[in-house]
């Protein structure tokens, strides 16, 4: 039984690239279409699973030598570093790679001592904000793509561009580089880039009378599929997430909104200015209506969606209670990890789920196929907010070491892709492609990635205004139109500086 319908997938890819070119889509990631012979040696205009498979393993990297050119290996220094590292729920391999990374860094720069804090994803943003306000920030921190600009705007970050740590600009996705820019200056280096895919349970599809190997092609189809799964099997169809004050919500709703032609500002355009608000355009309203249809009309999604974060969808999915959801390739490694640890009846269930897991592209809509261009960047804080004295050399050494092709690939092992594009050519990428099934799906979604607006107000728009809009519709507190207009009004007030 083919786990993935390659022929259909490919056709879809070509179609997408065709449409994308026609619609000037490539413009949303400027530079994607040019650069056949960039320093990274990559041709990003031809980004297919075959191409990615073909280049993997073609480049040998000497991280130590590359770092030595930036900061001498004998440098003495001290570094404080905060990041979201592996935790209780992470698969074992993440713990292993994290440990290896610190050993390797200590070997490369034996005279730099590191004081590191592994923080919880849901707590980190507030912690960094508080720390920066109280002049207690670390020297270096790695955090999700969306957060950096707020600190840059407040003058709490040091300027930092890839060249400062020895890497040419072309080695990074243009969309990723855009996320570290504020008022024309660069404040960070991309460490990893990720996009999600659609994951579904083939057994539930089968039970619902759907083709188990074929994901919904469009968001309209997804609504139909979700209802069919609910009606035929009694299980929930699509894993909607609509909790307020939660970052998971926009990562799942914005792709749908963009697909229907909606936008928060003009972030899906070629050269966004983030000056106009489009939350109440017809595309945004169509996306809201589709969510309303699933939650209120069909009741085909978890009714706990309004209090759920994505966390709460994972367990139902892997216990066969949920048909589809938008997620990382990580889900698959988590599942493998659990299967390995499960015993008795649970082992059988787990093995069944692994056999039935399928990954495909996020559905497209009338306007485009879209996904959030996510990932993380590494930043150096401004000396005035750092706890103690900023050791710039140690900081640069660390950034150079961790954003090179080797470690940007390894650290992104289970759920992401290297920020440094040369990483795609390494042997480690080849190993990942061989061992992490479905990695090619999310890798192929990268060109459909739309970065969140790079303005300090974004986290409020995405984590509060958008989820509130969705909740106003799903609770029937407001009509679709009224909720969209209400959200647009709030976003406009926000842009006016209040």
């Amino acid at each position: 039984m083919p786990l993935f319908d390659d022929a259909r997938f490919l056709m879809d890819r070509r179609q997408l690239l065709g449409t994308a070119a026609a619609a000037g889509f490539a413009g949303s990631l400027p530079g994607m279409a040019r650069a056949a012979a960039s320093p990274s040696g990559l041709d990003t205009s031809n980004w297919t699973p075959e191409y990615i498979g073909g280049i993997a393993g073609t480049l040998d990297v000497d991280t130590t030598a590359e770092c030595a050119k930036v900061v001498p290996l004998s440098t003495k220094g001290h570094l404080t570093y905060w990041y979201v590292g592996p935790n209780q729920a992470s698969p074992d391999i993440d713990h292993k790679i994290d440990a290896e990374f610190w050993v390797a860094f200590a070997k490369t720069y034996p005279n730099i001592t590191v004081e590191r804090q592994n923080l919880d994803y849901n707590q980190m943003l507030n912690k960094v904000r508080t720390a920066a306000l109280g002049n207690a920030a670390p020297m270096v921190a790695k955090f999700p793509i969306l957060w950096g600009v707020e600190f840059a705007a407040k003058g709490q970050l040091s300027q930092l561009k890839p060249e400062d740590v020895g890497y040419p600009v072309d080695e990074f996705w243009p969309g990723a580089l855009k996320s570290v820019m504020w008022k024309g200056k660069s404040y960070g280096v991309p460490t990893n880039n990720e996009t999600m895919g659609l994951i579904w349970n083939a057994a539930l599809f089968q039970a619902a009378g759907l083709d188990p190997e074929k994901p919904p092609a469009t968001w309209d189809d997804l609504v139909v599929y979700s209802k069919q799964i609910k009606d035929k099997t009694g299980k929930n169809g699509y894993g909607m997430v609509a909790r307020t004050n939660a970052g998971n919500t926009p990562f799942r709703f914005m792709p749908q909104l963009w697909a229907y032609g909606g936008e928060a500002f003009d972030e899906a355009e070629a050269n966004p200015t983030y000056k106009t608000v489009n939350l109440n355009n017809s595309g945004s309203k169509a996306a809201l209506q589709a969510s309303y249809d699933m939650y209120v009309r069909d009741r085909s999604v978890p009714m706990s969606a309004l209090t759920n974060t994505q966390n709460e969808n994972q367990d139902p999915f892997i216990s066969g209670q949920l048909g589809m959801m938008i997620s990382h390739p990580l889900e698959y490694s988590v599942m493998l990890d659990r299967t390995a640890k499960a015993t008795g009846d649970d082992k059988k269930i787990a093995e069944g789920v692994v056999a039935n897991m399928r990954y495909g592209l996020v559905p497209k809509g009338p306007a485009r196929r879209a996904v959030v261009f996510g990932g993380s960047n590494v930043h150096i804080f401004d000396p005035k907010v750092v706890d103690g004295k900023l050791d710039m050399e140690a900081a640069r050494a660390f950034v150079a070491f961790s954003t090179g092709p080797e470690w940007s690939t390894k650290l992104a092992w289970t759920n992401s892709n290297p920020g440094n594009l040369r990483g795609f050519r390494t042997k480690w990428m080849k190993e990942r492609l061989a061992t992490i099934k479905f990695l090619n799906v999310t890798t192929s979604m990268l060109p459909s990635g739309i970065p969140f607006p790079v303005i300090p107000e974004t986290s409020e728009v995405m984590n509060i205004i958008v989820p509130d809009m969705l909740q106003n519709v799903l609770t029937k507190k407001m009509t679709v139109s009224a909720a969209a207009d209400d959200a647009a009004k709030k976003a406009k007030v926000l842009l006016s500086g209040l």
Partner: protein
Amino acid sequence: MSGTAAASRKRLVSREPGVLARMVRHRADYLYVAPALGVMLLVIGYPIYDTIYLSFFNTPPSLALEDKTFVGVDNYIRILTSDAFLEVTVNTLIWTAFSTFFAFVLGLGAALALDKQFVGRGLLRGILLIPYVISAVAAAYIWRWLYHTDFGVIGAIAVAAGLTDRPINFLDNTETSLGSLIVVNVWKEFSFAMIMMLAGLQTVPEQLHRAAQVDGAGVFQRFWHITMPHLKGVTLVTVLLLLVSNLNSFTIPWIMTAGGPAGSTDIWITAIYQLAFERIRFGISSAYSVIVFIVMMSMGYFYVRALTRRDGARYG
């Protein structure tokens, strides 16, 4: 020692002038209260000053705190004229009033039921106190799991008992969310009221009850005419302590629903937290805090009166 106290009382009575002189004479007394007051001043004094100061500034998320702009009372006007404030205030009043009322009634009922010797009384009292002593974080997670719309046990029991044909939507529904949270809050704190009222009941003289019983007074009459008058003081204290703690609740609403869905469980404190920490507006969140302070302080008069009634009787 008591000589000193008596002497000082005499001086008080004679209204000897010169507060400063008296303070100097009593300088040693202040040493006793200095550590307590010092640490309070540190932990409360500066934050109050800072909150009031910041409430007159606009601090948009795009600017560092140093670059704030003075806006006078704009923040106050914006809060008081916004629709959301009205909604949040109504939620806060419902939350506080119903939580306090039900916690008190259940607590009083439990105290009356327990105010009699029987085997296992201590254990039962201890069991009823469990929700009060466990952490609010744990309580919030336990109840989120009980209420869970898809896997929750309460919904499943209702379905199994034939009460509904599908699981009840407790937390994901604007009509039931606030009520569901109030149940959790009452569960968490009714035994505080119980233990206070139990203590109060022990001060009711047994003879009075017996005398009334002999006179043929019924259970309810005895409760109303003998027990209740003795419980007036402790009732006031208990209700005020409950009101204050309910107005200040944060953990249960925040962990369970984060103010959602669609703002239906947003109360003052969660709104302030959201403004300050999710939306990074310290200026407007400080103004919001000051408004809440003012409400609290106006209650504070009754609160202090209730706690110090005894003093009034003794020295007043």
